[in-house]
């Protein structure tokens, strides 16, 4: 199970609790998470966003970030990601894959400790 966001997969336990990223045990009930839901082909709604002007080493500037909410069969599961263009609260967005979200060589965290690809969010017209 990858939990570093390179595949935008939500994880569900037998009691129906849904999380992104996955956890070894469901944070709500402690059961192992046994099912997965691919979020990468779904759309989401922008809950909030910011544009960061001063960014950490290895990160694009400015960096527009959003927390978005996916509706999976009536359950909400959220994700954080950069956006590819300006967004507003309530906008519908879709995930787009980016090979390298920040420069691992310029970042503090060890390159081998995680995958550096993942999904940004693009406004849907």
């Amino acid at each position: 199970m990858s939990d570093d966001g390179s595949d935008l997969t939500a994880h569900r336990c037998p009691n129906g609790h849904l999380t992104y990223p996955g956890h070894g045990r469901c944070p709500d009930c402690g059961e192992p998470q046994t099912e997965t839901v691919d979020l990468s082909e779904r759309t989401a709604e922008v809950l909030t966003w910011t544009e960061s002007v001063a960014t950490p080493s290895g990160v694009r500037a400015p960096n527009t970030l959003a927390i978005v909410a996916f509706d999976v069969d009536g359950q909400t599961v959220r994700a954080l990601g950069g956006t590819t263009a300006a967004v507003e609260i309530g906008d519908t967005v879709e995930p787009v894959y980016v090979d390298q979200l920040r420069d691992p060589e310029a970042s503090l965290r060890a390159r081998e400790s995680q995958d550096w690809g993942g999904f940004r969010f693009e406004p849907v017209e």
Partner: protein
Amino acid sequence: MDVAIVGASMTPFGERDAWIRELLAEAGRACLDDAPVGREAVEHLYVSNMASGELEGQTGTMNALAHDLGVLGAYAERVDQTSASGAAGVYEAWQSVASGASEMTLLVGGEKMTHRETAETSDVVASVTHPVEYKHGVTLPAFGGMAARLYMEEYDVPRESLARVAVKNHANGALNPDAQFQKAVDLETVLESPVVNDPLRLYDYCPVTDGAAALLFCPVAVAEEYTDEYVRVAGVAGATDTHVVHERPDPLALSAVAESGRQAYEMAGWEPTDVDVAELHDMVTVLEPLELEALGFAERGEGWRLAEDGTTARDGDLPVNPSGGLKARGHPLGATGVAQAVELYWQLRGEAGERQVDCERGLATNVGGFGNCVITTLLEAGAA
């Protein structure tokens, strides 16, 4: 066992030439000079520090400080709870005395940060995040921007009301000779400063800071052998929230602040109305109203009104951050939680000079991450 504080100190906060060892030793020496006992009395030594290894390449600071202070033989330990390391040290020091393991515990919190580029310091602090967050380059200040936008949207909070937190805390810092910014600012200055994490601007945020602070703890029974003027630890408790910020059911609820407060109030037998003065973790302006709500000082969505109506001003019903807060005093990560308690110690003893407020009971809340791990401490003046 009831625990007392019998000594306190802080170095000037700001851009300092001193490195971490020197900052810690400066605060530790001043605290022992302030206390009614000598260095030979120290049995436990705790050092609150988040990142001296990453920022400076100096690890093992607790052993270094034991040697530099001449308290060799003492049990020494470093305490890391990210930005809440300072108050985690308060918790450890309280526990060491309350358990009977130590009769005299020195706590020193410190951080040396300003020698690094801001982008590097920002990366070190952001390294607390989960890989799904870190890879996107999110920072704790950026979470502040997202929380502020959501708070304004959900509760019709005026942008100006967040700026008023900065104006208030700068006015307080102007009276604090140890603060990094000893300068009042007006609303326009805050609202016209450069955008940092839209909609928040430069003056919504605390600065990058060097500094250290210290406290000396012992049983109340021991304190009473030396002095009538001590401060008692009435309650202290910590709690955690999700590591991944977006997984919180309500991103504005700060549940670890609420839980640490609930447990600390229960330990002390206090209600929020018993608190006379508070030091809150205003790393970014929006955190002050959100903490006021989580700690029971305001209803949900109403915390911003307390800076608007003067409740949290120095002459209000509940002065908040009379020290200037993180905003104006500065935020040397591991020092902050200790410095909050040092401010309460001075306030409760009537030693806060021009910024003195009328108080007998104080609360401090120190936040790690964006509400990820939190300690709330309740202190009161004098005899148990």
